[in-house]
């Protein structure tokens, strides 16, 4: 459905070349936004840009290389003159028993999610402050809401987003900048399919404790993201919205 509710908005999405990030980009695009994709996979970025057309541009940008953040943001400003929405979506996953996980592995997880999102957010914030409007959205996870085994680093990183959202929301909301998070549950992406391909039993177990009895679609996350960053959510800030078919409410 095309509501043009993000008409001419400049939307920056990290990790926007595949999976959930790509679907978020597609939805904002259909609603009139100009998209800046940030990612590390050049072939995927090129393919996605071709698919989406000229309203979508991209930069190769690794969120852990924070000394390039300033340059990256400057490029966006030169291209569009403004940034309206930032979606901190880039992420990686690591499932590994805690006593086999190394410190570099743990640190990498925090670097990508926590320090990476901080770096972009702090660089873009002055632009939003100057125009007294903007939306910053963090892609958290149900791993920040319920305990899941063998994801200690991922859970730490995604839980950090909850604190970052609340703190930043109280700091900048009076300046017209809203800050929120989405906590996706089990979403049907190539990554999930890969994780489940040799384990039918696990799929059954997961769906057995998801009240809606099915996996979510990337579009479910995109619709929630679009809502939270639109004027329809004009008084919503500092919140964490799970989109998980009820998986986090427990049974």
């Amino acid at each position, binding site marked *: 459905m095309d509501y043009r509710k993000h008409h001419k908005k400049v939307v920056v999405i990290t990790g926007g070349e595949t999976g959930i990030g790509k679907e978020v980009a597609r939805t904002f695009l259909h609603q009139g936004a100009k998209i800046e994709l940030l990612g590390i996979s050049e072939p995927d970025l090129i393919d996605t840009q071709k698919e989406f057309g000229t309203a979508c541009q991209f930069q190769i940008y690794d969120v852990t290389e924070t000394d390039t953040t300033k340059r990256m943001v400057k490029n966006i400003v030169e291209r569009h003159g403004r940034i309206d929405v930032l979606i901190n979506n880039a992420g990686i996953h690591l499932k590994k028993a805690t006593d086999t996980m190394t410190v570099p592995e743990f640190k990498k997880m925090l670097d990508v999610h926590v320090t990476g999102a901080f770096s972009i957010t702090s660089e873009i914030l002055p632009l939003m402050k100057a125009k007294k409007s903007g939306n910053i959205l963090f892609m958290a996870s149900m791993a920040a809401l319920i305990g899941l085994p063998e994801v200690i680093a991922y859970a730490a990183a995604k839980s950090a987003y909850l604190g970052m959202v609340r703190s930043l929301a109280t700091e900048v909301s009076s300046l017209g900048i809203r800050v929120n998070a989405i906590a996706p549950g089990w979403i049907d992406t190539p990554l999930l399919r890969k994780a489940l391909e040799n384990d039918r039993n696990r799929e059954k177990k997961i769906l057995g404790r998801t009240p809606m009895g099915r996996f979510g679609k990337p579009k479910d996350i995109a*619709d929630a993201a679009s809502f939270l960053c639109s004027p329809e*959510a004009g*008084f919503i800030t500092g919140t964490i919205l799970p989109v998980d*078919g009820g998986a986090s409410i427990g049974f």
Partner: protein
Amino acid sequence: MTGFGLLKNKIAIVTGGSQGLGLSTATYLAQNGAKIAIFDLDDEYTALKADELPGSGHLGIRCDVTDATERVKAIQVVLDTFGTIDVLVNNAGIQFHSGAQDMPEEQWLKVINVNLNAVMFMSRDVSRTMINNGQGSIINIGSIASFQAMPGRTVYTTTKTGILGLSRNLAIDWGPYNIRVNTVCPGYHDTPLLQKYIANGTLDPELIKSRIPMARMGLAEDIGKAVTFFASELSEYITGQSIMVDGGYTAYGGAGGLNGVED
């Protein structure tokens, strides 16, 4: 603001929908194409308010949601008129302010009856239609009191906290039927009731604004917008959840300052 047609041809019941946030919610749902049945206590006023909603053919029905007979009768009128029910907004609610040590038992029970029992049984009575349809969305109205306590609000806080557990359990019971149950939690919104509290000195608007990160009261329509999101297909994978529509009030834990939030 005009709607986006998100609820075209959907049938929605809004309890307590003839004034305040309930009326604003009914209005926004109607703007999005829904046919509305307002359930409220005053039959003439309720009918009048239903007539004034955008679009035509809406219903205003006298219904005390705590009364089993009236509930069944009113729901039947909706079914006879529209044929189905897609959305239920359990908005009707009351408050009673008292120090807990002086709480009259009668008032305690009355508030629990309206804010909690009626929500359960309105949902139950409507669920039969929704289960038959294999779809539906129920939106309960919580509060910042669903998460934070306030002096003199024991019973209100108890019911609004209870709403969260009720919503979660209804979500689990009815997830298999594709009925979603979520809670929208308003903060301080500019409504006639809030204006009354400000006028009679119960609320100090400057003090409240000083601990709202957005540094202002919400608009009444902010709630209708969030309810519309949860009523629509845009939230088709969201159930058992609550969302604060409070300008950041519950995200903030500092002391507040008259020039805005401080630590």
